[in-house]
């Protein structure tokens, strides 16, 4: 399971003249957070934090700009969802066509048809999804275990990235259902 990773990045940071009297390392740290937090890269995933600055190169002044440019090497923590990966998350929103699950910095879509083998109906009043035969209920705040089956990360607009989930497999689903299933199984074994 590779969901979070630490990567090393080298990039140039522009330090504006107004901040030249401050401690350069903390200024660069601020700028890195500003510049990189939430940035999405197709290959490396989404940068969720700057961990440590490894090296700050010599500042350079370029013609026509009073700012100082530093080559900085730093380590960052990235969030990278992978296809077929099992994730756990909280249901944050129930809509007509399914549920949105928060799996860290991004929300993933769990479509109606991918929740159970049963047909799910949308209960608009209570904002929940109910199984037609099994009467299984999925509502906001439930924790679920699901598999990532669709990935479309948009570098330019991270908000428009889409992650699709499925729970139509053994031992996937709302953690409540899994618990119930386990209990039933144990009873079956004992009895």
């Amino acid at each position: 399971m590779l969901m979070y990773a630490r990567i090393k990045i080298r990039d140039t940071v522009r330090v504006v003249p107004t901040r030249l009297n401050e401690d350069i390392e903390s200024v660069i740290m601020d700028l890195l957070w500003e510049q990189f937090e939430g940035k999405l890269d197709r290959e490396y995933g989404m940068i969720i934090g700057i961990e440590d600055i490894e090296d700050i190169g010599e500042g350079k002044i370029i013609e026509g700009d009073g700012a100082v440019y530093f080559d900085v090497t730093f380590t960052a923590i990235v969030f990278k969802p992978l296809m077929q990966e099992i994730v756990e998350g909280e249901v944050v929103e129930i809509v007509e066509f399914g549920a949105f699950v928060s799996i860290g910095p991004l929300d993933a879509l769990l479509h109606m048809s991918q929740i159970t083998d049963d047909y799910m109906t949308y209960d608009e009043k209570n904002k929940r999804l109910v199984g037609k035969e099994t009467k299984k209920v999925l509502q906001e705040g439930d924790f679920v275990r699901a598999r990532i089956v669709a990935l479309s990360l948009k570098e330019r607009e991270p908000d428009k990235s889409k992650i699709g989930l499925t729970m139509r497999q053994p031992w996937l689903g709302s953690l409540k259902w899994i618990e119930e299933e386990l209990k039933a199984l144990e009873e079956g074994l004992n009895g």
Partner: protein
Amino acid sequence: MIDIKRAFPFEYTRFEKARIIGARALQIAMGAPVLIETDKIDPLDIAKEEFEKGVIPITVKRRRESFVWLERHELF
């Protein structure tokens, strides 16, 4: 005699001096903190004064063969 000056405590050429004062004046104009006590208002004047006092935290990196010092007789 050709003498390549590259060790740090060197005299700046007028071009380097212009570049340093220019860059510093631009920084001051863009809001960089001034390093000396002065009554001057024009960023260029402030930069010049800083340069005279030797407080500008900018150095010049000369590349190995970027220029050479020539004696007058070598030019003709």
